[in-house]
């Protein structure tokens, strides 16, 4: 199998040769992850730069960014709250938790606060059904969320 290697600037025999270097296509997601961790989102310019680095078309980068729900192509709040909408969480009152967050943050689900601090979203099962209702704040999982906890979390994030 022949493949173009963006590092060696030539066609290489086996795609494997490219696999370990930082410029191979398989490093795309780790690279995008780094950008997002740093800036909170992946801009059009970032996508162009990544595409140039990997020797692929920017549309391919865009198609990947928009496929994964944890990658953002638009600027969002500094922090993201994701409330699990899995049935186990709903049975333990996650709809109410969403309402509590909406009230505390004064935004609707899917929106970002005016001060650009917090974005409120829903997400599929986060694997915390035994501690439902569960949420994910940035990368952290939090279980057994209550109205009181919601207030504390918002206070913490707004600081």
């Amino acid at each position, binding site marked *: 199998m022949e493949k173009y290697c963006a590092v060696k600037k030539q066609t290489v025999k086996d*795609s494997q040769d490219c696999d370990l270097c930082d410029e191979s296509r398989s490093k795309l997601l780790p690279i995008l992850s780094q950008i997002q961790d740093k800036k909170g989102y992946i801009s059009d310019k970032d996508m162009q730069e990544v595409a140039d680095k990997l020797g692929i078309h920017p549309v391919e980068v865009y198609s990947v960014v928009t496929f994964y*729900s944890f990658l953002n192509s638009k600027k969002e709040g500094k922090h993201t709250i994701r409330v699990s909408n899995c*049935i186990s969480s709903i049975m333990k009152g996650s709809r109410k938790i969403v309402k509590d967050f909406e009230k505390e943050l004064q935004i609707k689900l899917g929106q970002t606060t005016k001060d650009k601090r917090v974005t409120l979203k829903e997400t599929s099962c986060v694997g915390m059904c035994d501690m439902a209702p569960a949420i994910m704040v940035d990368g952290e999982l939090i279980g057994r969320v209550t109205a009181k906890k919601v207030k504390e979390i918002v206070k913490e994030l707004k600081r």
Partner: protein
Amino acid sequence: MKERLERDGKVIFSDIELGSGLKKSLKIGRLEVLDTVRDSNLKGRGGAGFPTGVKWNLAATSSDSKKYIVANADEGEPGTFKDRVLLTEYPALLFEGMIIAAYAIGAERGFLYLRGEYRSFLPNLEIVLEDLRKRNMLGDNIFGNGDFNFDIEIRLGFGAYVCGEETALIESLEGNRGEPRNRPPFPVYTGYNGHPTVVNNAETLSNIAHIILKGSDWFKSIGTEKSAGSKIISVSGDCKKPGVYEVPFGTTIKKILKLVDALDVKAVVVGGASGICIGKNEFNRKLGFEDLSTGGSIIVFNEKRSLLDVVENFLEFFKEESCGQCTPCREGVPVLIDGINILRRGECDSSYLKNLLSLSETMQLASKCGLGQSAPNVFISVIDKFKKEYQLSSKKREGRVFNG
């Protein structure tokens, strides 16, 4: 995050000394490892139940110089959280399983595909890997074995359920959208970057060290004839003791409900959104590949819950998570959601319901991957078995067949 610390089980949660499975593997040699795993009848714990030994043998016999082993820790099925426990409490056992697999098939690189929801476990997992490198269980000349070099890299997922499907997972590793490939060719022939790749569930791999150390006969003595060993289940919903348990295959739903202290149960969904819904008269059914197969998810519903709400929630989940590549899945799910709403309003007549069931069958047959094929499962089982949950209209629906 608090975890229940005292865990009890016959296989994965039983005691084992770190590295002892690997040591024995290197002593008995590749062929013996392959034979032991095949003889143990270990089957894939993700739910599909493909024999692990067969998968390994297929990869081992390939003459390709590059092979890969991938641990699938992308559990996304609603109600599944067993990998969370394996990754936080038994990570070294999982990695040891990967190392033994690599030795058996001749792989030099492995990946742990960790779902984005679990990224907070990443720092600790890296520490465990570093420790394994220090112990010479990873790296070059593992345990002084000159021709065995292997290392593991952790790759993150980014919130796509479909990436738990093995070919979608490989696409994701390669830096693509997580869209499933056509199978065949299977990843054991053409996987990561075109090379033979064994993708095993994290739980499957966590069995390996125990099997090698204690033997295939010991493993087969647990469970049933067709389902050897134990299953890690994650129970949630209407019960007093939700959590992760290890039970031998063959355990009845009734017994599990007792274990988690569930009262007043109307229905149990086994296998999450892509599983099936069973009622009281079926609680004697058993966990196992020959009866109730699950990736681990068991959700309990009491008498007060509306099962139509449950089905709608699952279908909304599939609508969100469908990769959109194939038509039966992408277009079928919204029609079923619409159907649920019509049913709830009592406006659905028997012939329209028949259409919905026929559409479900089409989705099961014609979808490209497991996601679409299993998306209508819970819908079908609720319609079939819980006729009290809905009322059919006697008035015939006129006009278009679908879309209400």
